[in-house]
């Protein structure tokens, strides 16, 4: 391998090096010094994120198994930024004495899953895709069970690993059918010969089901709420934002390249799933009182919106999808950041505990309000632009009724987002959560989110850049 090849794979390679480095550092630290891991890991990851943005080598490796181009680089960078915010937000919680011995494990596990996602994004064939998928999933279960002394967390880990195993099995079954009918595992080759033969349609449905599990589309969402609620807050935010975003990236690329010849078919399927996902996700979110569960169900509904972008099938569809994921990362991490800051300080996670928060913690409240308004798609916040572009791409395919259903769902979602705002601003509370100062790193994380929420919409160059690297369904 030449230096150029290393450069092509630098996202994965640097991350792998970081994992090893943190492992080594951790071994050499005394028990009392373990907290040093936090600043070290953060600065290392910060460097990694910055390096990711430097002009990069593109190319194809391993005979087509792995490829890097402007699009994959963009996707990886988006994920990196998201992960960096998650890491910033998790510091307070990691410093808890419960986590004393295993701080490094958090970083190692989390980065391993990120390597997996990066491999998935760069994959040029189904083998690499599957490898990446497993690497992204199995450490995730360990993360979910991170606070394993709590039964709920352990339960979340088991639930996640079991449902992932099932979904991987289904996906793999689909892949085997694809291989059986086309004789290839390479995306390009398959894409060229794929047709609507019954077995190939079935193979696609299996593949889609497997991915739907990961993105938690209805009716494959049942694992989500329990896992999200049981896991530590920061792990939950990682699941619902980064992991979901990565899966969406992969889904859209595979749908647009490999399965382009049956686009007419998967658009119908996606139509149905989108309607179900938006509606059912919303209806469940309406009644949630636990903030994590609430955000979990609302993120299911958001996944339904994302399908609208995928259904566009054209360049603006892909742009809208990627852009929405980017916006969603900032908005949702903003909300999760507040939940995690409060949870780390007070242990409170119920919506009733948020009553009267504005009188004691105005900054956090405002941030939460901005985040949920962005999630609800209220201008001039980024979420409005994200939703607008998604719906535009669906309308470009002529799906006006779907757009209507989606916007109605956005209105329903506004109701429960407003419930949070109402709790914080309007509801009276005898004993609101006392004023507290969150530490600087948490604040930095929240600040990045706020900036993102405000700037992304107005700064059209970002949208235009994404558009310049996106592609339409190849014909």
């Amino acid at each position: 391998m030449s230096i150029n090849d290393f450069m092509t794979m630098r996202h994965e390679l640097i991350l792998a090096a970081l994992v090893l480095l943190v492992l080594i550092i951790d071994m050499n630290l005394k028990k009392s010094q373990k907290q040093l891991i936090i600043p070290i890991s953060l600065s290392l990851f910060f460097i990694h994120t910055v390096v990711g943005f430097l002009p990069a080598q593109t190319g194809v490796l391993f005979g087509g198994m792995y490829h890097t181009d402007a699009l994959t680089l963009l996707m990886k960078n988006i994920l990196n930024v998201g992960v960096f915010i998650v890491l910033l937000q998790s510091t307070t919680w990691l410093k808890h004495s419960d986590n004393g011995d295993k701080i490094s494990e958090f970083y190692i596990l989390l980065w391993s899953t990120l390597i997996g996602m990066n491999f998935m994004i760069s994959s040029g064939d189904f083998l690499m895709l599957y490898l990446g998928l497993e690497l992204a999933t199995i450490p995730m279960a360990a993360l979910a069970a991170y606070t394993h002394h709590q039964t709920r967390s352990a339960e979340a880990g088991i639930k996640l690993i079991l449902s992932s195993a099932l979904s991987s099995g289904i996906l793999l079954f689909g892949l085997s059918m694809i291989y059986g009918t086309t004789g290839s595992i390479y995306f390009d080759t398959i894409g060229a010969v794929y047709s609507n033969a019954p077995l190939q349609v079935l193979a696609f449905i299996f593949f889609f089901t497997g991915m739907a599990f990961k993105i938690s589309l209805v009716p494959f969402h049942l694992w989500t709420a329990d896992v999200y609620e049981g896991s530590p807050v920061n792990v939950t935010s990682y699941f619902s934002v980064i992991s979901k975003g990565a899966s969406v990236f992969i889904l859209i690329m595979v749908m647009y390249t490999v399965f382009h010849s049956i686009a007419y078919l998967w658009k119908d399927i996606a139509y149905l799933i989108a309607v179900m996902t938006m509606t059912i996700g919303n209806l469940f979110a309406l009644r949630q009182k636990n903030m994590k569960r609430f955000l979990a169900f609302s993120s299911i509904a958001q996944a339904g919106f994302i399908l609208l972008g995928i259904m566009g099938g054209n360049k603006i569809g892909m742009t809208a999808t990627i852009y929405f994921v980017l916006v969603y990362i900032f908005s949702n991490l903003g909300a999760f950041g507040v939940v995690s800051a409060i949870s780390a300080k007070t242990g409170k996670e119920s919506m009733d505990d948020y009553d009267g928060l504005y009188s004691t913690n105005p900054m956090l409240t405002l941030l939460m309000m901005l985040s949920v308004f962005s999630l609800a798609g209220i201008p001039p916040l980024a979420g409005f632009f994200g939703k607008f572009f998604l719906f535009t791409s669906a309308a470009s395919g002529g799906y006006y009724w779907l757009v209507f259903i989606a916007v109605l769902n956005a209105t329903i979602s506004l109701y429960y987002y407003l419930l949070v705002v109402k709790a914080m601003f309007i509801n009276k509370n005898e004993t609101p959560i006392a004023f507290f100062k969150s530490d600087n790193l948490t604040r930095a994380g929240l600040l990045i989110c706020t900036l993102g929420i405000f700037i992304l919409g107005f700064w059209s160059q970002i949208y235009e850049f994404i558009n310049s690297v996106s592609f339409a369904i190849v014909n």
Partner: protein
Amino acid sequence: MNILSLFILIPLLTIIAILFTSNMKQTRVVSAIGMGIQLILAGLLVFLYLTERNTGNTAAMLFYYDAVWFPTLNIHYTIGVDGISVAMIALTSLVVFAGIFASWMVDYLYREFFISLILLASGVFGFFISLDIFTMFLFYELAVIPMYLLIGLWGSGPKEYSAMKLTLMLMAGSALLFVAILGIYFYSAPAGSQLTFNLLEIAKNHIPIEMQRFLFPFAFIGFGVLGALFPFHTWSPDGHASAPTAVSMLHAGVLMKLGGYGVFRIAIYLMPEAAHEQAWIFLILTGISVVYGAFGAVVQKDLKYINAYSSVSHCGLVLFAILMMNQTALNGAVIQMISHGLMTALFFALIGMIYGRTHTRLINEMGGLMKVMPFLGVVYVIAGLASLGLPGLSGFVAEMTIFIGSFQHTDTFHRVLTIVATSSIVITAVYILRVVGTLLLGPIKNDHFLHLTDALWYEKLSTLTLLLSIAAIGMAPLWLSDMINFSLGPIVEKINSVATVAHLF
């Protein structure tokens, strides 16, 4: 810098300035200065606009400015005004200015209050100057959202319920609108050429008739929800009754006009064929709004509910007139928007001031207020007379023009509807006179009322601003209708260029 951009910039700067204020006095002074500048700017705009027209500039939109925002989707920041938008901007700045003084004594979370109020106003200003449907929609939604907090935090009565109902109904309306806007966008240009959100560009193109038929109801009802179209008006009484004074003023006075303005700028203007075909359905609905709203006001006991139902009736009349689609009626519609905006804002301001003193809004608990607060009483009577259409005040000009325009249609359907709608004038007289009679005249029912004071300086300023404008329009309506008429010309032409399509009636 384009003068129109200032209408968004100044509210934003005011908001930033408010963030740095440290007590209630500073906050309200800063808000008053900001909105005062805005008012002066609006006056300047009217002046500049008229000067420009007098020098023979016949462009459809003046002070036109265009900047590309999202090149791929061809979204622009396009602004420009014609006589109608100038009039609406002037109305908005008047109402906001009066609203600031009407909420002079807000002390609970005062900073947040004024910020939300001004944010709301900036959304409205943005809406009226936009010529790009995307930015228009953006500002439209921006104007809706601060309402939730304004009603929920500073409102009265079942405020949480009302705030939620209002926000969700308006957002559901904008859901309909969203579909219409996207539909218009994808048929905004002949196949193969660059799509556009620019209103003027789209108007040059002809949207296929099948698409118009599909999209028109979305656009009309979408804006109609905000314009209190029956049966989507139910947010209005609850919302207005629960909202704090300034918010009721702004909402009934200006925000509801967004509905009427949008209907005629987007729905009718861009989809004239469908408008002609489907007008009869919506004419019936708006006719119901007009009469039902008036009857609703008759049976209410709460002053704010009375005024809210009266707004439903009057805003229904705006939509009714727009659907008549001829020059006279449209002219009347715009004057009615202005006139009703000023009138209803004045009413809500007065009700807020009376409520602040008597702590009740139920009319049968009050009486003889004219004796204890003559200033407020007299203003109330004048506002009432304007509302029931007394010549010399703005209401007369507006309603007269509308009904003359409507009666120009020679067919039975339109004439019958017009006659039915005219009956609202009588009903309006009933509830206005009833309120004036019980509220202001007669014996004082509560000894506590004897100690009440009359209006203070800021209250006088607030009410007089509005009152003088009402009188000005009533006395000299021609300059206003001239300004509007000129701009209506091309629009009416476009609407009626297709008037040959088959009518159902």
